[in-house]
């Protein structure tokens, strides 16, 4: 029982990364209709920036949690303005290809600048060590990652449901036809939403810095699992992205515990099952055309 609880928390911690990043992917897709292949690269950039900030400016994790998303937001805005924007009127596949090319460039640039072996990073003292919750000993950092991302997800949810901007974004994500029919002008939110999505990927990267290898390649496999996550959750759904993110984390953890070699394969098997049973994903619209 103890072990099961431990696996569960580990799964939720791993799922936090997927949930945060998938949330970003989902909003971008919702408002722009773009599947951002570079999401894994943005996650990597978030982690690399965190490591570089610690190294050069002595900026601790706490500051990075604030600063890096802002930087990534600005970067995302630039990418949208300079590149993504020009292809929005075309088939979404073109932006998929564009962001794929962008991924190659970003990964290679990081390799050129920071080498292939990775960057060092140390978590703040306050987050090291373990906490004992009624006999279940949990690493403090994993608990923090989980709680922090749940908080972010709740915050995003509040913004989405309580503010006008949020409602516009949500409407155009989940009911694009209706949003347009009601004459809502989504256009002016396109750039900030892209930046926001990129910032979420970057934030996942910041959280990853203390306990994952910070290398140029760290986002590659992550991005592919992320795609499985959004397919499972349903691309058009914000809730779906978050729920599927945590779900995939749990599948991964319990897979690791009971069928170690197949931990990653299980995720794709789950995806295949979902496509078979509910092609639109767990929370997806019935007929999603894209």
């Amino acid at each position, binding site marked *: 029982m103890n*072990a099961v609880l*431990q*696996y569960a928390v*580990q*799964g939720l*911690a*791993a799922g936090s990364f997927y949930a945060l990043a998938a949330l970003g992917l989902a909003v971008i897709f919702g408002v722009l209709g773009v599947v951002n292949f570079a999401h894994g690269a943005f996650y990597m950039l978030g982690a690399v920036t965190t490591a570089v900030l610690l190294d050069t400016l002595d900026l601790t994790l706490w500051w990075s949690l604030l600063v890096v998303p802002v930087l990534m937001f600005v970067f995302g805005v630039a990418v949208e303005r300079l590149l993504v924007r020009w292809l929005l009127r075309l088939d979404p596949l073109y932006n998929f290809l564009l962001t794929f090319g962008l991924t190659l460039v970003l990964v290679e640039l990081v*390799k050129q600048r920071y*080498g*292939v*072996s*990775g*960057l*060092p*990073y*140390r*978590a703040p003292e306050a987050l*090291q*060590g*373990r906490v004992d919750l009624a006999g279940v*000993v949990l*690493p403090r*950092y*994993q608990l923090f990652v989980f709680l922090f991302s749940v908080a972010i997800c709740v915050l995003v949810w509040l913004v989405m449901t309580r503010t006008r901007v949020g409602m516009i974004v949500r409407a155009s994500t989940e009911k694009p036809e209706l949003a347009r029919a009601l004459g809502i002008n989504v256009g002016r939110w396109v750039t900030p939403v892209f930046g926001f999505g990129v910032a979420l990927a970057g934030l996942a990267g910041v959280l*990853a810095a*203390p*306990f*994952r*290898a*910070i*290398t140029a*390649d*760290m986002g*590659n*496999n*992550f991005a592919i699992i992320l795609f499985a996550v959004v397919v499972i959750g349903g691309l058009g759904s914000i809730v779906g992205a978050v729920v599927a993110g945590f779900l995939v984390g749990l599948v*991964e*953890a*319990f897979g*690791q*515990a009971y069928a*170690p*070699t*197949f*931990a*990653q*394969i299980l995720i794709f098997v789950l995806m295949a099952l979902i496509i078979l049973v509910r092609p639109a994903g767990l929370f997806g619209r019935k007929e999603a055309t894209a």
Partner: protein
Amino acid sequence: MKSKRIRAGAAAITGILLLGACGRGGPAGSDGDFTDGKLVLAVLNDQSGVYKDASGPNSVKAVRMAVADYQKKYGDQAVVDDIEVTSTDHQNKPDIANTKAKELYERGGADVILDVPTSSAALAVANQAKSHKKLFLDVSAATTELTGAQCNKYTFQWAYNTYMLANGTGTTVTRNGDRNWHIIYPDYQFGQDMTKSFTEAITKAGGTVQGTIPTPFPNDNFATFLTKAGSTNPDVIGTMQAGGDLINVVKQFNESGLKERGVDLAVGLMLITDIHSLGVDQFAGTLFTDAWYWNMDAQARAWADRFHDETGTRPTFEHAGNYSAALQYLEAVQEAGTDNADAVVGKLEGKKINDVFLRNGEVRAKDHLVIHDAYLARVKEPSEVREPWDYEEIVTTIPAAEAFAPAEASTCSL
């Protein structure tokens, strides 16, 4: 109309085949002692992918240093004046490595290919060496297949292999008191080989392996694996992960609290570049087997200083291994007086060598594995580090005969 096209095509093909047969003579005959009157050393490695830092462009520089040393040593007595060092980047793609090796042997005039990281690429190059009857001195690839089932007359494994890594660490750590092991390994060939060798070494040294856990690759989440491994209360957890995955394991191991519970971490394959990138504090105390360390004695240090002047960084064992392989190849050529591969192989086989890299080295005639002393190293505490790249303390020297599997055990027949 269709048949006409086919016939026309057939005619064209026949024509070209005939032309081809006439135009291309047999392989260029060697009139003198050296084909084309020169010696070509071709370094083929990964200069843009994950192995760039560990070997890469700096290995080319190391080979150039060997050529310079050879020329300085023999001067007018050198049997060949014109020595060329070429550099090729296989981009960590085995098929490019394969084609380039073929091209280097066939058209680039390469007499020897050096380095070649990644086992699939190295094995492919070994096959090219075999069919072209030219030399291949592997430095960076660790698979025992190269000198085992897939060995051949023209291929030598110069620096290390999985057996050396596993045996050294497994035996020594067990003897030093960590008797109960739990091993996590990436579930692919390298990881499986390492785990097998580790288990044998541990059992032989009187320890027990409580469990082995295969993990997916690549993977960035090892928390559950570590929890599971820790649940049997082992003295030490052995990890066979490499590169980025190794860093993931170490970070998550440090975070899991196992260290405080007195569980040690032993690493199967660690390169000094890994320590450099993650920081010595994260690895402090970790035990692993190294083929060579730049600051292990005065001779190594002197060479490392020269290397530093050339490259601005400290050498990995792969850099030193490439230097040694190139230098000893040149020595063998000097002895043979020709670049004829069979003659050079004859001079290399059974040769006992002591140089910057090889201590008590011997080129084993049976399987072309170059055995030499290996070292059990401990990563220093941050407080012990005196200068950049000062990361390792050599705990034990493992004599050549123990460091590698005995020749009798080899499945190789040349």
